[in-house]
């Protein structure tokens, strides 16, 4: 039999063992949870380094799309992120590759980005031909030739802080592309060895495309890669420039192909669209470009008396006539509207004339007067109809005012008659009252 003291000692020991087991289980739980987090000794060490060149990748990686998709340093650089030592982490036997050389970068990225099966796990909609396209580009060809000053994947997409192209902070987001390209292409020193100009960016910023992109925030407006390609970036040649512009300006490009200019431009080796519209500094076209007046573009090639000179003058006068007619009709309709007349319908119908003007401005790419006339004629008819409606409204206004004047005379006359009648009645009532009193 145990004594009371022995029983108490036994209870104390049992209680201590129970506490120890609980503490052990708690520690085990904490340890298990901590181990569940993916370890990355690369980031842990690099983030602590004083040399900003070495710590920057770890810090930038926080916002990287690859990190967001669950990838880490070793997925590109190899090595062992679980190792706590530098040697262990950078163990070549664990596949450590380190920093790739410039010439190896496309293949380095292409290792995953050219693998359709692998990419399906992360982003099935992403293309996998970037590497192949890149080597077809001027950049890629030069790189293959041993030139390392050319752009590779990281020159445009950045490195470690790579963002999705839909992210406005990405260097390749639509409104950042021109600035990214300009990093190299706007530097005269950098471009000198390649023998190409460096004013493309400055010119582009003055263009109608840049105005749409930056001022109107129209992300569909073209920037560098829309004409030059992105991974397969190549300047369009004389033969293909119309196809590039035709991606958006399809109707104009189609009309140009049927025009007499096509054969002439091919023969003289002139760039189809850019001869008149320029390439990077594409200004908003005006009607002054057309015709035979000083300042028009047509007279740069056509001389008085030739067929093109006559056609240019004729097309310009057709467009000028339509503009004048639309202006005249709008003026009279505005005047009628200010006078309070209801002219919203003829004003709406004037759209037919303004649409014809827009269409005519497109049809000048045929360089055929008869084609332009096919739309300016109905446009002029619509404008004339609008003018007649304006005249009619003003005439109706005059009729109303004249009618009002006649009506008011009649109304005042009637009111005067009733007033005289009241006076007459009251005079007679007064006389009757006096007679009654008398």
């Amino acid at each position: 039999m145990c004594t009371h003291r022995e029983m108490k000692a036994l209870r104390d020991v049992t209680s201590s063992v129970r506490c120890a087991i609980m503490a052990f289980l708690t520690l085990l739980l904490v340890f298990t949870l901590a181990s569940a987090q993916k370890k990355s000794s690369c980031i842990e060490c690099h983030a602590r380094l004083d040399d900003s060149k070495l710590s920057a990748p770890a810090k930038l990686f926080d916002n990287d799309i690859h990190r967001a998709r669950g990838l880490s340093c070793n997925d590109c650089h190899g090595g062992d992120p679980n190792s706590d030592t530098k040697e262990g982490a950078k163990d070549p036997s664990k596949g450590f590759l380190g920093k790739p050389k410039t010439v190896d970068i496309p293949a380095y990225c292409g290792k995953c980005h050219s693998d359709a099966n692998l990419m399906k796990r992360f982003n099935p909609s992403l293309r996998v031909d970037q590497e192949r396209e890149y080597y077809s580009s001027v950049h890629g060809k030069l790189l293959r030739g041993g030139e390392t000053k050319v752009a590779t994947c990281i020159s445009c997409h950045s490195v470690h802080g790579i963002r999705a192209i839909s992210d406005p902070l990405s260097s390749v987001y639509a409104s950042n592309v021109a600035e990214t390209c300009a990093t190299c292409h706007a530097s005269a020193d950098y471009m000198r060895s390649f023998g190409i100009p460096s004013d493309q960016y400055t010119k582009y910023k003055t263009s109608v495309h840049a105005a749409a992109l930056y001022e109107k925030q129209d992300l569909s407006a073209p920037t560098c890669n829309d004409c030059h390609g992105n991974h397969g970036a190549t300047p369009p040649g004389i033969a293909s420039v119309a196809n590039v512009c035709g991606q958006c300006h399809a109707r104009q490009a189609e009309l140009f192909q049927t025009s007499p200019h096509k054969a002439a431009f091919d023969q003289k080796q002139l760039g189809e669209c850019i001869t008149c519209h320029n390439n990077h500094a594409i200004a908003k076209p005006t009607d002054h470009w057309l015709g035979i007046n000083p300042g028009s573009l047509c007279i740069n090639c056509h001389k008085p008396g030739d067929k093109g000179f006559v056609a240019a003058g004729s097309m310009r006068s057709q467009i000028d006539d339509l503009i004048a007619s639309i202006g005249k009709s709008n003026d009279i309709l505005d005047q009628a509207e200010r006078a309070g007349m209801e002219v919203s319908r003829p004003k709406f119908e004037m759209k037919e004339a303004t649409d014809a003007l827009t269409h005519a401005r497109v049809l000048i790419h045929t360089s055929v007067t008869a084609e332009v006339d096919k739309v300016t004629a109905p446009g002029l008819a619509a404008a004339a109809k609008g003018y007649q409606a304006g005249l009619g409204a003003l005439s109706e206004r005059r009729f109303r005012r004249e009618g009002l004047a006649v009506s008011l005379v009649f109304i005042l006359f009637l009111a005067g008659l009733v007033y005289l009648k009241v006076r007459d009645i009251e005079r007679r009532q007064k006389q009757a009252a006096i007679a009654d009193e008398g």
Partner: protein
Amino acid sequence: MNIAALTAWLDERLSISTLAAMAQKKEVPVHRHSIWYYFGGMTLFLFTVQVVTGILLLLYYRPSAENAFESVQFIITEVKFGWLIRSIHSWSANLMVATLFVHMFSVFFLRAYYPPREITWVSGVLLLFIVICFGFSGYLLPWNKLAFFATKVGTEIAGVIPIIGRPMLRFLRGGDDVTGATLTRFFGFHVAVLPATATVLIGIHVLMVQLHGMSVPPDLIDKPVKKMKFVPNFLLRDLIGWILAIGVLAALAALFPWELGEKADAFAPAPAGIKPEWYFLFMFQTLKYLPAKIWIIDGEVVGIMAFNLVALLLFIVPFVDRSPQNKRRRLVFNLVGVVALLFIVVMTIVGYVT
């Protein structure tokens, strides 16, 4: 059958001679405030103009979101003198609201509501609200942009009334938003419910005026007052006013035709600086000046409830001020009337200039 025989035939059936004798007996007091007597008749005349022009507009108007705007456009551009009818209808509606306000304030200041004229006053106040409802419902019918958004704002204001606000908003709009359903609903109110109610109330109002005669201002009650016969003296004077009113309406319609504006588009942004019709402007402007919270209640709710309370107080005026010769009470009522009038005028002006 000659005229005398026809008159005798009608008299036998309709007792015309009795009515004529009654009319001959009716007299109107003549004093320095007599001018205000004409505003009741003028309002009634403008209401008649509304009925006639409204019926003419109905011949072409199509009450649907798809056709309403186009049908009004057709009326003012294609139908012979359609522009005149539509403009007169719009101008006359506004003039009627104006003459109604003048009539109500003149009755208030001249104490024409004192016993036994309580029913006349109550029916008059009801008619004021009916006319305002006419204006609000009619404003939407052309289905233009301004009307669309003004109705949206107007019904939203009604919707903030506690408890009944939300069901009322849904009832007025025929749903959660202003749509074609709202238009057909407003059309129904405008051409059926409101005219029927107004006709009954006008009947009661005019009958009461005939029964009790024209009131005399309190300061003239015990004094000898000249009188003129209602028929023909006063009636012919009324007629002069009505003829001149036709002239004014014709001039307004010809010189300032009522605008149609742009067709309503539920997806378009509300036009900047949107304002209601002038007779709602003082309330709209007051609500704008109220703070977001008054104690723990929304400022807008407090404002709307206050206007509702004033509307209710209008009904009980003749039951509170029963003694027209009580000078102290008269002073208080005059003061209240002047303050209310100044408030309406000032807030309306401020609403227009800001």
